[in-house]
């Protein structure tokens, strides 16, 4: 058992609000994701949870850091959108330069 899973298992949750197994699976799967970004965020979350367990972060500090993950994820979503536009632009520019300006002049 890792420090992370020990800490999650050790959280007192009499009301059963926290789906501990799902959380552990979520992070374990994210750490194996093919996306570098997703793996990095999972590692952040695990490291911060361990730091909370060690007292290097207060609960308030931990919550603030985890909320920052949402912002970084929004940045990644914009990046993915830009990459799609860049592909479309490459096709559009190529057709204009190579097909319309060059090929059309020859046929």
């Amino acid at each position, binding site marked *: 058992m890792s420090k992370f899973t020990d800490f999650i298992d050790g959280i007192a949750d009499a009301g059963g609000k926290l789906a501990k197994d799902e959380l552990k699976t979520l992070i374990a799967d994210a750490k194996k994701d093919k996306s570098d970004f997703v793996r990095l965020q999972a590692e*952040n979350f695990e490291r911060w949870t361990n730091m909370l367990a060690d007292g290097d972060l*207060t609960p308030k*500090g931990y919550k*603030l850091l985890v909320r920052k993950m949402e912002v970084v994820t929004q*940045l990644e979503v914009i990046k993915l959108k830009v990459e799609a536009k860049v592909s479309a632009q490459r096709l559009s520019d190529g057709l204009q330069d190579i097909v319309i300006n060059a090929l059309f002049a020859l046929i």
Partner: protein
Amino acid sequence: MTASTAYAGSALCRRAGSLRGFLLAWLGTLILTACVAVPISYYDAGTYAHLTDLKAETAVLVESFDSRPVKANEQRIDDVTLSLRKAYEYEHGKGANNSDTTAQFSKVIGLFKEDVITYRENGPGGLGPKYFREAAVVLEQAFDVMIATEAAKNKNTR
């Protein structure tokens, strides 16, 4: 050649001609559709340089929040805030085609501002002895996403 074969040959030519016309029209439509201007700015070496510089400046400053008193950092906070504002205005000035980068920049500046507010409210160590070291890591990762976004853009060779 009989009259009937000549007629059949000319009909075939007309059909081939109309098929060629159809294909050309279809190809033209396809190209025109593809050639609609894509609303995205081109790669900018200036933006890339700003981002790599600001990544280092902001991260070093935020890391220092774990140990330096707020008063000792106020001037540096003002300086870095000004640098961020200048870089944002540079991006904003490129117009609507650069709106994705501008949106990213707003979010990154928001992360930095939140770090400054948190620092002023809690001081060094108030959120844990290593809180701002980790906040700086997040800021660096945010800049990395922006840098990768800029690097992915096409170079304008026109």
